[in-house]
Structures are given as structure tokens and as C-alpha cells.
């Protein structure tokens, strides 16, 4: 849908399809069924509610850490809907709960990972905000920034070599673009024409470091030139713009035309994490201004304008999702905490003698 004319050019405006007022404003017809639009909205709201819920858990001392997603939901939903869930591979980072949820990772598992209970298929090995699902090809997130990008390229190369028709999608913040691993991955993908879409959730800050201290280029998308691939800059608060650009980018990769870089301009409303206080480095007015561009509000106005949504549905949805969240949380807690002995499993395919001995010494 997005034509070659939208291919990134320096100083282009970010691509947007729905106005702040919720009006469809694109050079092509909307071609999504109402049901899909409603599901998208549901996922936007679910992600926001999950975020609030996780914040509560952390403040209650039930979990050690939270990485707020609020403000990224439009990007998350747009990316998730462009993928073939369980077929394509997703390489997410720690600020992607909304994305993995929309892709189908069960809430129970997200809570399980947050609380390190047996409900976490990753066995409670990592800090909260590191989701992963073998069943859904969601490559378990790792903390070292950008370190998942070279593996994502490797998986994409494997897809290409074996002609599986799959695509790899990797997400990361704009801070991640400064790491050598970003460069190594982009460059190898570019040279090999690997079927991968690099998705930068550019929220303007890496913890406290603002974009202009992070990167000399005007945009993140501009970096695509250095690797001979197309780059797009997109209004990341516009879920449909994210979706349509991603859909094209994924098709581009799937058709064997090589990798794409997509930059989604978002904002994190909250602090970097539960360990951060952002008041030292971000003006409150800036946060407020971005909040007015909220992806949920815009999508809701869009639905309302099309006659698909009313206040009563909103209340119903929020009630229902609230119950879903509580039920999933209860399930995750009920699964029980991860046993100490699991500490020694999965270092290797088989537990070696040294670790058996060490397990004894506990």
C-alpha cells in the first residue's frame, strides 16, 4: 500500500495515516475489516492496562522491576498485526509487552515471567520485561542492548537459505542504534539481502540521554542508507500507520527484496523503568504534550468516527480486560515459584557432573 514514494528521504515528514482527530487521511483506501480494527483497539487497551497492573505489582513489592510501555502501544499493535504469528520470528526487547501480547503470548506467561513463577516458559531465569516464547517464535529477550540483532540476522539468513518464506522482525530503542551490534547486524543483513525488518521504537531517550546526544543523524531511518536498504520514518502514535508501513516492509522482506529499517516515533510516558526518575532530565511539558497524542485516544476517535465505538463499549471492554488480567495474574501466581534446583538446568543440554556436584553443595 505504501508506495515507493514513501521510501525514506532525508527530511521527509514522518508518515501518518490517521489525523490526531481520528480521521483517515491516507492516499489509499482502508482495507481492514471492522473486526480487525476492533481487535487492534482491544490490544491497545489491554497493553495499557497491563502496564498499569505491572506498575502496581512493582509498587506493592511483588516484582522487582518494570519497564513501562505506555506510549509505545500504537507501535506495538502495528508491528504485531503485520506479522504471521507463530510463523515469523520476533526478536523483541524489554519494552515490548504490548507487542508480544498482541502477537499472542498468553498474559499468564507475561505475569509468570514478571513474577518468576512456573508459568514462565523461560523458567524465571531473567528479570521481568524479558519475555520469550518458543511456541510463538518469540526469541527470549536479553538485556544487553542490541545484542539480539546479529542473531536476528542469522535467523533471517537461515530462513532465506532454506526458503521457508518466514520473516524476522527485530525491535529496539533508538539508543540501541549506537551499539556496534546494530551496525554489524544491519550491514550483514544489507549485504546478504536477509528477510528481516529492523524496527526502531524511537522514543527520544535512552534512559536520560536525548536523541541529539545519541546520534548525529537527523533521523534513525536515515541510517538505512549506510546499509543499502530502505528506511521509513513513521508516526508511531498512529497504530494504523505503523501497521501499513510494517505490512509493506514485511512483504518486501518476504518477497526476497531484502531488509528494511522502520523507525516508529513514539514516547514513553513513564520513567525508563521502576529504577528511574525521569524528572531530572525531561521537562514535564514535553511529557504532557506527547500524552495528548496518545495512540489509544486517536484510535478510539477513529473508531468512533466510523461508528464502530461508543462509551458503553469502552466501559465494557475495560471491565472485561480487567477481569482477564486478574484471572491471568491469579493463574500465574498459582503456578508457584520456580524451584531452587532449576538453577542448574539448561546451562547445557544435559546437566554436567560439575553442576550435579554444585547442586549437591547447595
Amino acid at each position, binding site marked *: 500500500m505504501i508506495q515507493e514514494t514513501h521510501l525514506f528521504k532525508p527530511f521527509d515528514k514522518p508518515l501518518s495515516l490517521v489525523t490526531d482527530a481520528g480521521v483517515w487521511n491516507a492516499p489509499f483506501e482502508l482495507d481492514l475489516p471492522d473486526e480487525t480494527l476492533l481487535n487492534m483497539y482491544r490490544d491497545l487497551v489491554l497493553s495499557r492496562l497491563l502496564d498499569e497492573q505491572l506498575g502496581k505489582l512493582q509498587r506493592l513489592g511483588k516484582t522487582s522491576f518494570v519497564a513501562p510501555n505506555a506510549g509505545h502501544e500504537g507501535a506495538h499493535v502495528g508491528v504485531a498485526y503485520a506479522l504471521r504469528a507463530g510463523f515469523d520470528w520476533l526478536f523483541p526487547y524489554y519494552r515490548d509487552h504490548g507487542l508480544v501480547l498482541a502477537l499472542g503470548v498468553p498474559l499468564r506467561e507475561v505475569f509468570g515471567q514478571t513474577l518468576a513463577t512456573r508459568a514462565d516458559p523461560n523458567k*524465571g531465569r531473567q*528479570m521481568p520485561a524479558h519475555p520469550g516464547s518458543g511456541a510463538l517464535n518469540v526469541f527470549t529477550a536479553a*538485556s544487553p542492548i542490541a545484542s539480539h540483532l546479529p542473531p536476528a540476522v542469522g535467523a533471517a539468513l537461515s530462513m532465506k537459505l532454506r526458503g521457508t518464506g518466514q520473516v524476522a522482525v527485530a525491535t529496539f530503542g533508538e539508543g540501541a542504534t549506537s551499539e*556496534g551490534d546494530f551496525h554489524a547486524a544491519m550491514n550483514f543483513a544489507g549485504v546478504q539481502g536477509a528477510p528481516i525488518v529492523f524496527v526502531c521504537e524511537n522514543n527520544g531517550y535512552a534512559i*536520560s*540521554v536525548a536523541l541529539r546526544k545519541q546520534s548525529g543523524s537527523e533521523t534513525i531511518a536515515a541510517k538505512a542508507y549506510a546499509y543499502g536498504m530502505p528506511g521509513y520514518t513513521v508516526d508511531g502514535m498512529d497504530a494504523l500507520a505503523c501497521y501499513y508501513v510494517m505490512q509493506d516492509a514485511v512483504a518486501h522482506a518476504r518477497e526476497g527484496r531484502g531488509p528494511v529499517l522502520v523507525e516508529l516515533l513514539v514516547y514513553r510516558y513513564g520513567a525508563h523503568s521502576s529504577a528511574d526518575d525521569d524528572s531530572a532530565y525531561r521537562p514535564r511539558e514535553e511529557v504532557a504534550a506527547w500524552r495528548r497524542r496518545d495512540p489509544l485516544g486517536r484510535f478510539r476517535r477513529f473508531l468512533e468516527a466510523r461508528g464502530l465505538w461508543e462509551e458503553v463499549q469502552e466501559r465494557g471492554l475495560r471491565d472485561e480486560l480487567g477481569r482477564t488480567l486478574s484471572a491471568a495474574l491469579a493463574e500465574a501466581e498459582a503456578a508457584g*515459584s520456580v524451584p531452587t534446583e532449576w538453577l542448574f538446568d539448561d*546451562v547445557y543440554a544435559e546437566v554436567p557432573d*560439575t553442576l550435579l556436584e*554444585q547442586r549437591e553443595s547447595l
Partner: protein
Amino acid sequence: MAQLNFVQAITHTLDFEMARDPRVVLLGEDVGKRGGVFLASQGLFDRYGPDRVIDTPLSEAAIVGAAVGMAAHGLRPVAEVQFSDYIYPGFDQLVSQAAKLRYRSGGQFFAPMVVRLPAGGGVKGGHHHSQNPETHFVHTPGLKVVYPSSPADAKGLLTTAIRDDDPVVFMEPKRLYRAFKEEVPDGEYAVPLGQARVRLEGDDVVLISYGGSVAETLMAAGALSEQGVSAHVLDLRSLLPWDKGAVLEAVARVGRVVLVSEAPKTAGFVSEIAATISEEILDTLLAPPARVTGFDTPYPYAQDRAYLPGVNRILRAVQGVLNY
């Protein structure tokens, strides 16, 4: 003398050295306005400005590598890597550039720099906010490695590290950052590298540790003393150089030794101490040198505390050594 916790001692020392020597500059992720994620440089941006407290892009290779060039050109950079687990993207800069610059240039260029690394577990950080990579540094000729366990030592050793003409990896046990306060000398205070500190005098068993594990080691010594066992506790403080003299003297005198370290067991730094002890004073040993260490697994999240060499595991090893 002020009562400071560990991280306050770091801030105070950075401030002291920056005021004293205009060549000292800080660089790292979020070290500016934010004051670092652990607030180790809090207030210094306001005091010394963006030219001397430099927020870097998110690249440890840039941080460590730029520090090498700054140092070679005459500055005294103190680089912060946000967690020691994140040294790896900058590892090549550390081992191939910083550690080898003086050697490869025949002494024409050198890199007087410090790399500060908040390290160690016990903070529910999972495997990328808990590791203890000191062995990698100790095994890299050209580097010096320090790992203090208390606020006063932090000041004394950071002062020395900043003034040293060689690259120093300065590790900080992050779980002790705010654990306790102690008297830290206000003015000039430098502790030489390579000198262990006797934390407790004793005759029945020698306990050797460094960094975060000194806390558990001292607790174990306390428990032992209640049982009437007198432990001699050495806090190495500096790992390269390490105080062979103090270690051999104490072990030769007592004959029994337990080495405590959070790092994974296999080929960890304390293996070097054990090897040296058996190489040099075998005949004085009344029992085999025992190691109590982290496990040979990635650092876990759910079992954060179980991974650490805790008091119980130390006591069991001491029993083994005493009953041998």
C-alpha cells in the same frame, strides 16, 4: 571525616580528584544530568559541566575506546560502564587497546584511565546485571584490577587508580552501594594497589575474599567466633596486583584456608590463589585450600541469593577444612 556509604564515597572521590586535577574527566551512559544510574556522579555535571562529565551514546566500545584516546592524549578519563555485564561490547577496546597500548608502542603511548564497573549479584538483576567478570581482567596482562568492599577503601583505591599511569579496572560491589556507611577521610587519602587488608585477626582458619563477598565472609567469621573458631579474614581489595605476601604469610601460619568469591567457580580468580598457595607453601597446609564460589551457571534471577556464596556455604567449607 564524614560518614559515607560506598556510592557516596565514589562521588566524593570523583569530585575531589576532578577539583584537584583538570585532566580528570568522566564519561559514560547517563553520567551527566542523571548522575549515572546509581547516582555515582550526581551533582558533578552541574559542577564541572558537559566538557568534563560526558554523556556518551549507548556504546561501551565508544566509552572504553574513547577513554584510551583521551588518556593517550593527556587526559585522565574515568569511564563508567553502567553494569560490569556490559563491558563485553567494549571488551576488545579494553584488552586490545587499553591493555596493550604501552607495550605495543614500546612505552611511547600509554593509557592512564579508569573503567568503573558496578558489579556483582544480590540485587535481583538476573544474568546481565549481576555478573563478576574480574577473572577476564586479571587474566589480561596490561590491566590492573581493583575490587574494594567498603566506602573508605573505595576512596583510597579510586584515588590511586585515577592517579595511576596504567589502565585500572575498578569494580564496585553494587549490592553494597547503600548497605552501610563508614568514616571516610575528607582530604587526601590514597591506598596503594596490591595490599590486602586484614579485616579480622585469627588463628584457626584464613578466609580470603574481595568485593561484595567480603560482607558474607565477615558474617561467617562472626558466626565462627561464636563457635569459638577464630578466623583470619583477608580482604584482597586489589586483584592485580594481588597481595601474595599477605596471603602466603597468613596461610602458612594458619595452615587452613577458604577462598570466597561470587564469580563462577571454574577457572575463576580464586583458583589462581589456590594454585599459588599449593605451588609455594604446600607443606604448610593442614587441609586443602577450599573454594566457595558462584556456580558454573549464568547468574539466575529467581535464585538470586542462592547463587551467591552465602554464610552457610562458607561455614560448611570451613567445617570441611577444620575437620580435615
